[in-house]
């Protein structure tokens, strides 16, 4: 079960970094002529930070360690901390938007507007929590006589 947990957390870490770079490294974000140069700078810093943290978490997760608890916790926290602001930022800070293009038409399901980035955030957070839960469950199995 620990191996499945490690693989699941690795998949979430890699997909979080790859999807974020793929979505932002184009004319909708970093090369958007309407964005101020310093706003673009902050997005690039965020992507470097995310990639760095993901590599760090993968290294912690796959290295040999007598105390793996911190590695699994970090591997779960990297995607959860990165994706969590997608759920509350627009509620906390007026004038922010989840839509890169204000004119973009979004799908509506049962009267609820579906933001693709929030959907990816939700799936990633759930998978990271399942991965971490599997690690905790494997720990309980080891402790039981």
């Amino acid at each position, binding site marked *: 079960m620990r191996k499945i947990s490690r693989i699941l957390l690795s998949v979430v870490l890699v997909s979080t970094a790859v999807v974020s770079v793929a979505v932002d490294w184009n004319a909708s*974000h*970093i*090369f*958007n002529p*309407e*964005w*101020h*140069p*310093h*706003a*673009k*700078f*902050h*997005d*690039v*810093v*965020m992507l*470097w*930070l995310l990639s*760095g*943290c993901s590599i*760090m978490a993968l290294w*912690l997760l796959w290295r040999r*360690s007598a*105390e793996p608890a*911190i*590695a699994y916790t*970090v591997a779960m*926290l990297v995607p959860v*901390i*990165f994706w*969590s*602001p*997608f759920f509350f*930022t*627009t509620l*906390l*800070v007026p*004038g*922010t*938007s*989840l*839509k*890169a293009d*204000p004119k973009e038409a979004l799908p509506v399901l049962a009267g609820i507007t579906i933001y693709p980035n929030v959907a990816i955030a939700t799936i990633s957070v759930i998978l990271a929590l399942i991965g971490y839960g599997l690690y905790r469950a494997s720990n309980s199995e080891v402790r039981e006589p």
Partner: protein
Amino acid sequence: MRTQRIGRVLLSLGAFCTGFFPVAADWNTQHTFSPGWSPHARYHGFATIIAEIIWSIIALWLLWSPATKNNSLSIKFAALIPIVYWGAFFPALFVPTIALEDKGFEITHFFGIPGNLFFIAGFIIITALGYWLYQHIDREKN
């Protein structure tokens, strides 16, 4: 023991600055509340600040919680958080069309270099020094 404590304090300073320097520098009308920034750019600015605060708190917890403070992996990770974050500023500078400052909100330059880069280099040096001091003692013990 004294050197180890100095190392831990320096690491804590690096972790604290990682969470709270961006709030002081970016939570204003030049960044998150800039009328010139698009709503989604402001979103990214805010999300990064939130992530930094959380990582800073985690690093401080790793450094000072009785459950983790003596674990070498905790110390290593607490040191990597500020280094990875502030280190990201340097490769970002090489991406075309981006800038460390917006027109009308220029930063003070020293010797032709934007002032905030000196702060950033300082945070990285403080953290690396803290880690080196901590590890130095670790090696002596073993």
